[in-house]
């Protein structure tokens, strides 16, 4: 069960109407290494991961939904008053025809989100290594969006999100260390 706090994890400000940037941000909305994939991956894997690290997957999976909400806000603000012509110029003509100004879970190229983006192998090490890889891929995606974006306000929020990927990766590494630990072995120093 979740409590909802009616505010974003980090403020989202947009400096100008820029539907093309919204198109690129969609990669983090419904892409393979996006926030939706991350949230669903961790919240699903947590049932069959050792007790020691269930809480970690629960907390990080929940935070990913907070990130998803930030990305959604950015996409919405960047496109909400765009005319059909502006959307066509931004490469979003096909999106407009199918969805009007609505958001949709797809990647930047328009492929719909699919459960094949995520895995639950049941093997704790395999799952955590996938989670680490997902965090590093999401960090890289944020870098490339920051590189392509000329919106300083959006970039500020994206840098926050990129830093969170680094922190999450660190925590998943620590989870692997916890599961590697030799139990019942006396430590002699």
């Amino acid at each position: 069960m979740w409590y909802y706090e009616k505010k974003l994890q980090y403020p989202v400000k947009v400096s100008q109407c820029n539907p093309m940037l919204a198109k690129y941000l969609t990669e983090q909305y419904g892409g393979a290494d996006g926030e939706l994939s991350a949230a669903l991956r961790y919240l699903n894997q947590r049932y069959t991961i050792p007790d020691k690290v269930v809480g970690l997957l629960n907390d990080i999976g929940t935070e990913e939904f907070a990130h998803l909400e930030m990305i959604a806000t950015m996409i919405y603000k960047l496109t909400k008053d765009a005319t059909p012509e502006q959307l066509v110029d931004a490469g979003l003509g096909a999106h407009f025809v199918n969805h009007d100004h609505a958001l949709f879970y797809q990647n930047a190229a328009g492929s719909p989100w699919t459960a094949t983006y995520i895995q639950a192998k049941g093997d704790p090490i395999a799952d955590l290594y996938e989670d680490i890889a997902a965090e590093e891929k999401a960090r890289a995606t944020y870098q490339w969006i920051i590189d392509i974006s000329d919106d300083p306000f959006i970039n500020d929020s994206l840098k926050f999100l990129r830093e969170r990927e680094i922190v999450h990766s660190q925590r998943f590494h620590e989870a692997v260390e916890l599961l590697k630990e030799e139990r019942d072995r006396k430590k002699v120093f």
Partner: protein
Amino acid sequence: MTFTLTKCYSPFVSKFDPCKPVLTKCYSTPPNLYIEFQPNNTEQFPTAKEALYAGTLWPCLYDPYYSKRGESSG
């Protein structure tokens, strides 16, 4: 800090490369690669506001990123 947050290398450049060659290529190596277990009581940012802007409570995990479009800070 005993590590750097970016690594650079000089890729092979051919005379026949169609685009203007990039002589140095760099990639990110964030702090989490170098910290095994974060030690207890790691130093925190002095204020909550600084921590929020950094995206982390701990300076040891903070890795600023600068756009390749040429911005220099922030």
